[in-house]
C-alpha cells in the first residue's frame, strides 16, 4: 500500500508504532482470552469439583457425625464400664491389701506355731498332772464323805430298828399278858359252858339224837370253814411278814437278822397258841358264838401285829 502524503511522517511513524503495539495487544488479548477460556473451564471444573467435594464432604460429615455419635455412645459406655472397673479395682485393691495382711498374719502364725505347740505341750502336761492331782484329792474326799454318810445312815437305821424292836417287844409283852389273862378268863368261861352243855346234853339226849347229829355236823362244818379262813389269814400274815422282813431287813447287819428271828419266834409262839386255842375250840365244838368271838379276837391280834410290823 502506498504511503499517504496527507499525514506527516512523524505521525505515520507514530501510527505504525501504535499499530505494532495494537498487534502486540491483540496477541496479548488473544492469549488472555484463551487463558480466560481455560480459566473458565478450570473454574467450571473447579465448581464441579467443589460441588462434588461439598457433596462428598457433606456425606462424609454426616457419616463422621454418625460415627462420632456412635463413638460418643461407645465412649460413654466404656467410661461407665471404666468407672465400674475402677470401683472394682478399688475393691480388689482393698481385698488384696486385706489378703496381704492375712498372709502376713498367717506367716507370723506359722512362725509362732512351733513355739505355740511347745507351749501347748507344756501346758497340757501341766494340766494333766494338775488334773490327776485334783482328781485324786476329789476322789479321796468323796470316798471319805461317802463312808461317813454310809456310817451315819447305818447308825440311824440301826437306832431306828432298835427303837422299833423295843416297841414290838413291849407290845408283845403286853399281848402275852393280855393273852394269859384271857386264857384264864376263857378257861373259866369254857368250864362254865361245858357244864351248861353237859346239862343240856342230858336234857335232850332221849328224843333228839338224830337232830343233834345233824346240828353237830352243821356246826362242825361252820367251824371248819372258819378255820380255813383263819388259816388263810394266817398264811397271808406270814407272807406279809416275810415280804416286810425281806424289804426292810435284808440289807441290814446280823443284828437285824437276830431281831427278825426273834419276831418270827414270837409269831410262831403266837401261832402255836392259836393252834392250842383251835384244839380247845375243836374240843368244845358247841358254842359257835364263842368260837366266833375267839376268832375275832385272833383277827384283832393279827391286825395289831400287822400294824406294829
Amino acid at each position, binding site marked *: 500500500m502506498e504511503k*499517504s*502524503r*496527507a*499525514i*506527516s511522517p512523524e*505521525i505515520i511513524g507514530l501510527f505504525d508504532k*501504535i499499530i505494532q503495539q495494537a498487534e502486540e495487544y491483540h496477541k496479548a488479548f488473544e492469549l488472555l482470552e484463551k487463558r480466560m477460556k481455560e480459566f473458565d473451564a478450570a473454574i467450571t471444573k473447579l465448581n464441579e469439583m467443589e460441588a462434588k467435594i461439598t457433596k462428598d464432604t457433606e456425606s462424609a460429615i454426616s457419616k463422621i457425625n454418625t460415627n462420632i455419635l456412635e463413638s460418643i455412645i461407645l465412649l460413654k459406655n466404656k467410661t461407665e464400664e471404666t468407672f465400674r472397673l475402677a470401683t472394682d479395682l478399688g475393691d480388689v485393691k482393698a481385698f488384696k491389701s486385706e489378703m496381704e495382711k492375712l498372709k502376713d498374719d498367717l506367716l507370723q502364725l506359722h512362725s509362732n506355731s512351733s513355739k505355740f505347740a511347745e507351749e501347748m505341750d507344756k501346758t497340757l502336761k501341766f494340766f494333766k498332772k494338775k488334773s490327776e492331782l485334783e482328781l485324786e484329792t476329789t476322789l479321796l474326799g468323796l470316798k471319805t464323805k461317802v463312808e461317813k454318810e454310809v456310817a451315819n445312815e447305818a447308825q440311824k437305821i440301826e437306832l431306828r430298828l432298835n427303837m422299833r424292836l423295843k416297841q414290838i417287844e413291849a407290845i408283845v409283852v403286853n399281848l402275852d399278858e393280855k393273852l394269859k389273862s384271857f386264857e384264864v378268863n376263857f378257861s373259866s368261861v369254857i368250864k362254865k359252858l361245858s357244864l351248861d352243855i353237859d346239862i343240856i346234853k342230858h336234857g335232850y339226849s332221849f328224843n333228839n339224837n338224830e337232830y343233834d347229829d345233824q346240828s353237830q355236823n352243821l356246826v362242825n362244818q361252820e367251824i371248819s370253814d372258819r378255820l380255813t379262813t383263819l388259816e388263810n389269814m394266817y398264811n397271808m400274815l406270814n407272807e406279809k411278814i416275810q415280804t416286810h422282813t425281806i424289804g426292810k431287813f435284808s440289807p441290814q447287819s446280823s443284828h437285824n437278822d437276830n431281831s427278825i428271828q426273834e419276831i418270827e419266834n414270837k409269831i410262831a409262839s403266837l401261832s402255836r397258841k392259836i393252834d392250842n386255842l383251835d384244839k380247845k375250840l375243836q374240843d368244845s365244838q358247841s358254842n359257835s358264838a364263842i368260837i366266833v368271838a375267839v376268832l375275832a379276837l385272833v383277827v384283832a391280834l393279827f391286825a395289831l401285829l400287822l400294824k406294829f410290823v
Partner: protein
Amino acid sequence: MSLLRLFNIKKKIQPETFYEQLAKDGLLMDYLNKFLADKLRNDENFKQEMFEVLLNHSNEPVIELEKYYMEKLISSLSYFLEYTSQWRNQEQ
C-alpha cells in the same frame, strides 16, 4: 484476492472526482471549510469520505486530517483503556 485486485483496478480506472482534484491541488480543505463547513461538522459519513479523499489524494500534509485521525486514535485508545480498566484495576 482477485476481488481486491478488481476493486483496486476499478479504483484506478474510475474517473477522478472534483474533490479528488481539489485534494491533489491542496485546496480541498479550504474549500470544505469555506463552503461545506456545516455539512462537514454535522454529516459524519461525508466527513469520513472527504478525509479519505484527502488521505489518498493530497500531496501535502493536512493538519485537520492529522487531527482527525489523532482524535480517532485517541478515542480508540481511550476505549481500549476503558475496556481494560477493569482488568487493570484487578491487577492492581
